[in-house]
């Protein structure tokens, strides 16, 4: 105690014990460590109820996280499909091969066309036989049922331009049907965008659910530690001191839930990986299912921990005031 402190001059023997700033900082750090350890010990002391809470959080987070992974994959796979948008122009049956090549050359000269590709009826038949496995059936047919085809690659895939080209080609007498192969890709993209928004909404809703689960868990913890809180308040514990173990507890629940949700998503992806890769093979895609990005793996538990912290903070600020010393 400093000699010039007014307390030092008090004649009576009893002196309030004092602490240095360094001691208090060290004690503050210790209390953080002790609070974390205490939070973990309490989870371990009631493993089944802790596991319940953690599991609820994990499932709530695994849902949007898993969907996001699938959607990311869909986006990667369909990326570039838009880029090689092309028109499949089916000609009338009676157009012969020479005329077909001539048309293809003509069209290649259009401003908006990058190049054209001729698929003769014979080529189409061969390709179809090879791909479909219907070779024998086709052999049995008297004529080749496939029309001549010119594939037109537009110079610019801007939606309006491609459609204008499509109208122009459709108007030609030799053309039976000019089909824009990219329409369904566009629809798919629109669906993916919608999925993105849906995941956003889902995440928001389920994040709120996580917070509420933690609020409830911490509220019960406060209830069961009422006596301890009262004693701490009586002997001069600050609100921060009282709050700290509960905040750590909330963070631990959230963090553990986040880690477990990663495990759930990982397991689900592993489970789905085989069939999905097979499916992609069938679509001749070189992609295979990609898992969660390292940033997701890192961010999800922290995000979840933050939600837990928020829940604990809400519970504590709402209910700690109710616990006041009485005598």
């Amino acid at each position, binding site marked *: 105690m400093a000699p010039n402190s007014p307390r030092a001059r*008090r*004649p*009576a*023997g*009893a*002196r*309030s*014990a004092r*602490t240095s700033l360094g*001691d*208090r*900082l*060290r*004690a*503050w750090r*210790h*209390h953080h460590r002790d609070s974390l350890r205490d939070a973990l010990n309490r989870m371990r002391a009631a493993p089944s109820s802790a596991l319940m809470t953690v599991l609820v959080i994990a499932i709530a987070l695994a849902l949007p996280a898993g969907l996001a992974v699938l959607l990311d994959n869909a986006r990667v796979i369909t990326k570039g499909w838009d880029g090689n948008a092309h028109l499949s122009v089916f000609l009338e049956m009676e157009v012969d091969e020479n005329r077909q090549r001539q048309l293809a050359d003509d069209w290649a000269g259009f401003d908006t066309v990058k190049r054209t590709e001729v698929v003769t009826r014979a080529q189409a038949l061969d390709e179809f036989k090879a791909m479909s496995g219907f070779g024998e059936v086709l052999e049995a047919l008297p004529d080749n049922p496939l029309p001549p085809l010119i594939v037109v690659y537009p110079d610019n895939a801007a939606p309006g331009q491609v459609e204008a080209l499509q109208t122009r080609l459709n108007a030609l007498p030799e053309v039976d049907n000019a089909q824009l192969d990219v329409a369904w890709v566009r629809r798919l993209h629109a669906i993916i965008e919608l999925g993105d928004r849906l995941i956003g909404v889902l995440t928001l809703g389920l994040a709120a659910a996580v917070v509420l689960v933690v609020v409830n868990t911490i509220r019960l913890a406060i209830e069961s530690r009422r*006596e*301890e809180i*009262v*004693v*701490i*308040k*009586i*002997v*001069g*514990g*600050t*609100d921060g*001191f009282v709050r700290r173990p509960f905040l750590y507890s909330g963070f631990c629940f959230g963090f553990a839930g986040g880690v477990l949700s990663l495990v759930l998503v990982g397991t689900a992806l592993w489970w789905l990986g085989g069939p999905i890769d097979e499916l992609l093979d069938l679509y001749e895609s070189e992609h295979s299912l990609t898992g969660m990005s390292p940033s997701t793996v890192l961010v999800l538990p922290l995000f979840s921990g933050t939600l837990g912290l928020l829940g604990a903070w809400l519970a504590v600020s709402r209910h700690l005031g109710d616990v*006041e*010393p*009485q*005598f």
Partner: protein
Amino acid sequence: MIKFDRVSKRYPNGKDALRRIHFELPAGQLTFLTGHSGAGKSTLLKLIMMIERPTQGQVFVEGQNLNGFSTRQVPFLRRKIGMVHQNHQLLFDRSVFDNVALPLVIAGFARADIGKRVRAALDKVGLLSKEKLNPIMLSGGEQQRVGIARAVVNKPPLLLADEPTGNLDPALSAEIMDLFHDFARVGVAVLIATHDLSLIARHRHRLLTLREGRLIHDGEDDDHGA
């Protein structure tokens, strides 16, 4: 050490718990506070602990006007006050040592210092050998002494006791009272709220008597004013 300056307390339900209470407690004095239940003893203690705030008047602790304390400052006021409860308020999920150490942990003492101070306090109340036990294994009198050790472990200038001998037989009560005398002797202001008249009669000390919220007696008197 404590000064009540015309303090009144009216609860939101309209009940006047204290009316114009005026007294002063110097350091090193042991004082009894008595009165029937509902006379205002608890309210008076609550005002000192800042569990309640006065409706009128001012309470001073160590010369500081409590009306000027914000809610955030309340814990720091309480660190200057040792509080002994009738029901001990011990925590049964930890050892005697940890119970007594709690105020020091909260105040941020160094670990080594905590050990020394806790053992000194336990030694003072004669329970040094039981520091590792859970308080639930102790007798009522021993539990009360643990409560006292916790109240004085950080050497507060002020010690409040609410019915400290309520559940104890006369011999144990006498032991507890001896401890309080010792603290008063080294300069602590001790205020003991009790309606145990025999306890008061056995010790000639200053006596504050409350009745229906009024201080009707203040002095060293065998009459107890009741």
